[in-house]
């Protein structure tokens, strides 16, 4: 035991001596969560649009005013001819063009009907869709204010209540995701590198012939990173509470315990990677190239899993990050307790045991 503690001490010294890595280890997650918490959003704001107005009458002017008054759109350009639409799109700045038909006001009064064409640059389908919806709702508001005099019968009024995130802030969606990505990648990468590093430099052999048991060597390697990752997790949670005003509806203690569990899962994955990879380079490429995109895309961090094709929904089940994101969102935003997340917790525990078991099997305790 005394030897083991000595070994852990050595590992801590290693980490603390490398000031640069230490700085990166703590500085980067903070910088990232701040940057992303503020910057990443899939809401639509200040989209540049252009107007192609064939009528130029009082009604179109009123509608244009309403659109430019909304925070969603900035009118960048007035276009005179249809052919210029294409040029505007190709330059890439303008995302939508509103095309008012000729004699807009007159048609509206005479036929009670007038047309607007909403041309969107649909290379980004999501933005195109949102722009169309927002413009439609502005048009609807306008019509409602025009139609006030007419009484409408048999009206069904839907009362919509947005629960857990009434203001539809995208921070609530993205902060748990960023936290997961940081914990996952830092933990998996750190352990896999520090173990393969010993292999590559040849010092692993020295450790293996020492009186320490092989599993003690591995645990000794991992313990300091558990410690560091827990600090990281705590800092991220504090930042999200105090800076991004994320609520913690559930128990803070449970959140902490689940975070420690997820950190251990990631570290176990790191150990597994280190048993497969021979060089630091390979370890890093596996933990970065192999983990980064699947974790970003298949965890439900940005894109809803339920909308994916079924095979991908099945694959997403093997991504530990997916389960952890469900857990944090549950605890922080929904305020649920263990009764609702025991399944996810069990899955994470199962994955951890699986990673460790596989590593033990693959771990070579003898020299080549």
């Amino acid at each position, binding site marked *: 035991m005394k030897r083991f503690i000595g070994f852990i001490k050595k590992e801590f010294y290693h980490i603390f001596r490398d000031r640069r890595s230490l700085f990166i280890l703590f500085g980067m997650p903070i910088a990232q969560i701040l940057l992303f918490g503020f910057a990443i959003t899939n809401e639509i704001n200040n989209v540049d649009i252009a107007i192609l107005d064939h009528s130029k009458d009082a009604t179109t002017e009123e509608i244009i005013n309403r659109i430019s008054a909304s925070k969603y759109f900035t009118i960048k350009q007035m276009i005179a001819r249809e052919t210029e639409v294409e040029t505007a799109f190709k330059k890439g700045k303008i995302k939508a063009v509103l095309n008012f038909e000729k004699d807009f006001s007159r048609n509206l009064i005479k036929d009670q009907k007038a047309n607007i064409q909403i041309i969107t640059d649909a290379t980004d389908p999501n933005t195109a869709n949102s722009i169309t919806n927002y413009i439609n709702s502005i048009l609807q508001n306008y*019509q409602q204010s025009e139609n006030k005099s007419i009484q409408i019968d048999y009206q069904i009024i839907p009362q919509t209540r947005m629960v857990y995130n009434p203001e539809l802030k995208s921070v609530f969606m993205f902060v748990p995701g960023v936290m997961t990505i940081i914990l996952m990648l830092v933990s998996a990468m750190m352990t896999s590198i520090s173990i393969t590093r010993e292999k590559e430099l040849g010092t692993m052999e020295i450790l293996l012939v020492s009186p320490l048991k092989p599993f003690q060597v591995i645990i000794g390697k991992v313990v300091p990173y558990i410690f560091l990752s827990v600090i990281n997790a705590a800092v991220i949670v504090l930042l999200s509470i105090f800076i991004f005003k994320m609520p913690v509806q559930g128990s803070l203690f449970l959140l902490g315990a689940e975070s420690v569990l997820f950190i251990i899962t990631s570290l176990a994955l790191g150990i597994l990677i280190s048993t497969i990879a021979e060089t630091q380079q390979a370890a890093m490429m596996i933990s970065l190239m192999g983990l980064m995109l699947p974790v970003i895309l298949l965890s439900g961090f940005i*894109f809803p899993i339920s909308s994916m094709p079924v095979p991908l929904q099945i694959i997403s089940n093997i991504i530990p990050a997916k389960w952890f994101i469900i857990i944090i969102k549950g605890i922080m935003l929904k305020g649920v307790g263990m009764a609702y997340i025991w399944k996810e917790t069990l899955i994470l525990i199962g994955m951890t045991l699986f990673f460790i078991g596989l590593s033990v099997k693959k771990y070579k305790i003898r020299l080549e």
Partner: protein
Amino acid sequence: MKTIGYIIQKEFKQIFRNKGMLPIIFILPILQLVILSNAATYEVKNIKFAYIDYDHTSTSRTLIEKFNASNYFDVLTNFHSQEKASSAMLAGKVDVVLEIPNNFERNLLKEKTADLSITINAIDGAAAGVESGYVNQIVQSFNKDVKMDFMDTSKKNVQPVAIESIPSFWYNTTLNYKTFMVPGILVLLVTMITLFLSGMNIVREKEIGTLEQINVTPIRKSQFIIGKLFPFWVIGMGLLTIGLILAKVIFNVPMIGSIIILYAYTSIYILVILGMGLLISNFTDTQQQAMFISWFFIVIFILMSGLFTPIESMPKWAQIVTEFNPIKYFVEIVRMVMLKGSGFMDILPQLWKTLFYAIIMNGLAVWSYKKVN
């Protein structure tokens, strides 16, 4: 020239000799492109929908039938009480709950107006917005039918003014997400591979100690750097080619613009990334440090590139930060050229910035590389 040739030969040999790395460099990115591009969609489908019907009339049943018929909703369950519904929502089994109150039909007939209450899990704010839109669409169309049924014919002629909006989606009429995501993810993979490889390469020689051996040879600084980076440039271009072919064959992504412009731009772009990798290599002592720094930049570059979330929605200061993000320009260019057919003049601003960036990065990298410690 001959010296450079030999260094390049040596580098290629080292890359291809490392059997463990080959699949990571070539197969992993391709696999990810093919699989993960399917995951990146903001479309909201298969909404987990439940209802509580306190009314039990033919009107309420018709409304539920309407939801049943829609493609967006999976009508899951009929809850008998609010408690059960909210507990299912807490457990994540349900995302939208429609509650039809008691006397819904009677109110509609007698008071000429009736309420419906809808509860939506809004943790994913964007999806919640879309879901609420779908619900309103169905309710509105149901409302129209109801009016037709109940109103007396004399009143039907009084019509309110209506502005008809005709949406028209250019360049991607079916709103296919893969068309949008595949080029972007390809860009990302090319960038990640070239940055990681170049960032680790020289520092690896430093760490193992072989860099000193090279430094004492008569190889000049510029020769060494060109010889080191050229192989990665080739790998980057190769990946782009494979990716473009797959994009065409598997995802049927159009290639409207000129492929020559795309290659010309990419050849400059990769220089930026290689310069950055070399710079990282110069300022670090171990591969671990180099990897951390590359990782830090890559995560920022990815999430602030406009690839997954639109740049226009970011706050002003963040938009200024994205000006320094090379991936942003590449993503823009690939999408502009492939999907919109933008020409040379259209991409000129991005091209200038990338060229400038390449010169700065490589200048700094060469300047900071020292043969002598």
